[in-house]
């Protein structure tokens, strides 16, 4: 039995979260979400289902857009994008995300790049997956210092999209929209609920039984290490190489 690496489990988890979508977009500098979207497409094809479209920004081959930077946002506004990924320097328990900086705005103690498309896409894409590998109290905070985009909106504000899940390097949460909070779904291999409690800076719902995050089986791993890495290497050659080295290390 071949074992999956931690990153491969993340990629597989993303692919599972994307099940049932027909068009997934992935932003710039997002190799793990891109790999997850590619695996989701490959798995859907293996099942013989409807084809999944993916638009990887920064890719020429895996990208449908021909009208420039604005097309992604127009496409999302029209409801043609089912899923997207956002991260954050800070993410809080209400699903608010901060991509701008910590401390007092505008002269932040730590300044991050900026909000990118979040203050729009979070509102209009139905299944936004928050992805951040670091699982720590400095990232998962009680309240963000700056709201790049809010987790929920009051009635009367146009809001067809929002957070669906939060995936970190240690656990998977689902967002409970009606409660406006996260619920712990599973912990990844090697991580425990106690650890998640200790390293999460916000309160979250925690059912009495929390399972382990499923890891990819042999056939899925073969697909990931073959076709998906090939596809990924066009946009993310260094990351594809890293995944490959990881997998060899695991097998040794």
């Amino acid at each position, binding site marked *: 039995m071949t074992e999956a690496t931690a990153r491969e489990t993340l990629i597989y988890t993303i692919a599972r979260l994307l099940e049932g979508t027909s068009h997934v977009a992935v932003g710039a500098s997002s190799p793990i979400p891109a790999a997850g979207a590619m695996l989701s497409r490959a798995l859907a094809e293996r099942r013989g289902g409807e084809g999944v479209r993916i638009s990887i920004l920064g890719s020429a081959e895996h990208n449908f857009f021909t009208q*420039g*930077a604005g097309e992604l946002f127009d496409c999302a506004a029209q409801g043609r994008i089912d899923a997207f990924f956002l991260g954050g320097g800070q993410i809080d328990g209400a699903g608010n995300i901060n991509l*701008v900086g910590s401390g007092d705005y505008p002269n932040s103690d730590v300044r991050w790049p*900026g909000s990118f498309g*979040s203050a729009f896409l979070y509102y209009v894409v139905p299944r936004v997956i928050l992805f951040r590998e670091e699982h720590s109290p400095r990232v998962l905070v009680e309240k963000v210092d700056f709201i790049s985009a809010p987790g929920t909106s009051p009635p009367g504000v146009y809001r067809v999209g929002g957070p669906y899940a939060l995936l970190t390097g240690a656990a998977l949460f689902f967002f409970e929209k009606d409660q406006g909070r996260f619920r712990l779904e599973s912990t990844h291999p090697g991580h425990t609920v106690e650890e998640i409690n200790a390293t999460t800076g916000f309160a979250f719902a925690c059912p009495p039984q929390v399972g382990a995050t499923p890891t990819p089986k042999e056939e899925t791993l073969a697909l990931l290490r073959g076709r998906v890495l090939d596809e990924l290497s066009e946009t993310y050659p260094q990351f594809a190489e890293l995944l490959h080295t990881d997998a060899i290390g695991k097998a040794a």
Partner: protein
Amino acid sequence: MTAFLSASELAAKIKPGTKLAMPPDGSGASVGLTKFIIENGARGLHLICAPVGGLQVDMLVGAGLVATIETSAVSLGEAGAAPSFTRAIKSRAIKIMDATCPAMLTGLVAAQKGVPFIPMRGLIGSDILRTRPDWTVIENPYQKDDPIVAIPAIRPDVCLFHAPEADRSGNVRVGRRGELQLLAYASATTLVTVERIVEKSLLGDEATAAGVLPSLYVSAIAELKNGAWPNALWGEYAQDTGEISRYAAAARTREGFDGYMASFKQSMAP
């Protein structure tokens, strides 16, 4: 008519205080002209990123030419944070007007259409909206109780980008980089650097004409080989990842930035 200039003549079109718009890394940022812009020395620039900034923005900030940045992000992508930008925010050396990508693009589209604003979804409840007193929430005039943000037109004085080729009439092939056409429509003056100037008319071939920005919108062109380097230029060359990482590492300190820029100017020397 479109003027054909040298790179330094092109850079001299950028005056102190210019509202200067530019595309992202890998989508036609004219990094090669940066050396000439720094030599030209116009300060107090108001940069408009369409919709994000990268290497060129960071270099201009590091060189002390920038007063204000209107953007949805500044980053070196895989190479990490933009060091000069980060430093300038901390030391209050520049004013930041944080936005979100589609708001930058919507503002430019409003300028393209010659209208004062265009309404846009999202933003309500964010601190981006709260910290932008120049943006207003209006009521949808066609439906009760439907607030929506009115994004005012963004009208750059000058936009600058790099493209693979131009013809002798000043038509520029931009391919599927629609944001470059948008920049040109929205800006009073459009400056373009190109890898080469070709003898045939770029509008002559029906198969590729749609990806050509007509000379009507192009103020001046300078030939500048490898003008996007170390970023990629579509259909021409790949990103020089090692060089961008070298910049990212060097520019972590003020001294490192100065040292890097001295050799960068050398390496770009014609």
